């Protein structure tokens, strides 16, 4: 309980710090954030958007691990964790996409630019979408668990290919590369601390929500066994 309250406080402080610490050209005070030309206040998104994208990836990896575990042991509990994690991942994926897209509108001038990051989150969105489309199309819990785990593994295995592919096509697709690289944020210590705290805070938040989801699923599972 205490831990959860601490997490609440932790993220509250990060939100306050992330929004209110002043951005100055020459950071002198401990609370000063560095000025990034062309981004100004818009640089603050890094404290919230990047953790969301990170959680999206983390959720997918956890879903994948438990999917493999399910295939090995056929323990339906592993599928509960796997699908819950994927569900949360989809939610965070949508959040990350929307926040990123809004930010891109104000920084790059359009909602979508097919920048490498945008493409990778788009692919994750597609995979999550396909994963749940598949789940809803299969009857029988065991079959659903097996096939969706297999699908997640196959999809997961193709994702790393984008690392090699994106640099090859990014020139043709992405006119804003210059801004992205110019806008590469050189963080000072304050910024880094807030960023890392936010990353850890979001990770903890994810595990908490995941835990809640898995517990509800387990209860439902138990209930359906009793009702038999």
């Amino acid at each position, binding site marked *: 309980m205490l831990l*959860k309250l601490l997490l609440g406080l932790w993220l*509250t402080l990060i*939100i*306050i710090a992330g*929004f209110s610490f002043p951005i100055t050209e020459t950071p002198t005070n401990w609370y000063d954030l560095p000025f990034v030309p062309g981004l100004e206040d818009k640089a603050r998104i890094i404290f919230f958007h990047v953790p969301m994208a990170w959680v999206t990836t983390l959720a997918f990896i956890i879903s994948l691990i438990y999917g493999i575990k399910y295939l090995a042991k056929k323990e339906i509990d592993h599928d509960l964790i796997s699908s819950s994690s994927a569900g949360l991942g989809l939610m965070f994926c949508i959040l990350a996409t929307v926040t990123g897209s809004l930010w891109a509108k104000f920084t790059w001038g359009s909602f979508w630019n097919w920048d490498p990051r945008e493409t990778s989150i788009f692919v994750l969105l597609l995979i999550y979408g396909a994963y749940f489309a598949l789940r809803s199309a299969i009857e029988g819990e065991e079959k659903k668990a097996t096939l969706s785990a297999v699908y997640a593994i196959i999809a997961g295995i193709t994702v790393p290919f984008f690392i090699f592919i994106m640099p090859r096509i990014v020139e043709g697709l992405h006119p804003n590369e210059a801004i992205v690289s110019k806008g590469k944020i050189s963080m000072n210590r304050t910024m880094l601390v807030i960023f890392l705290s936010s990353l850890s805070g979001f990770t903890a938040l994810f595990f908490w*929500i995941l835990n809640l989801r898995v517990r509800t699923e387990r*209860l439902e599972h138990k209930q359906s066994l009793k009702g038999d």
Partner: protein
Amino acid sequence: MYEFLSQNALYIVLLIVLIGWVGIFSYLLRLDKKMTKLEKMFKE
């Protein structure tokens, strides 16, 4: 009024986000408590 709002836009956003976060957080906390209670009920 409008001037005040546009000059302090950042803090207004901060306020909105904070309210949203506190709402989500307290919801999660209540859900957690309820789950613990339900799990106890189920064990009996």
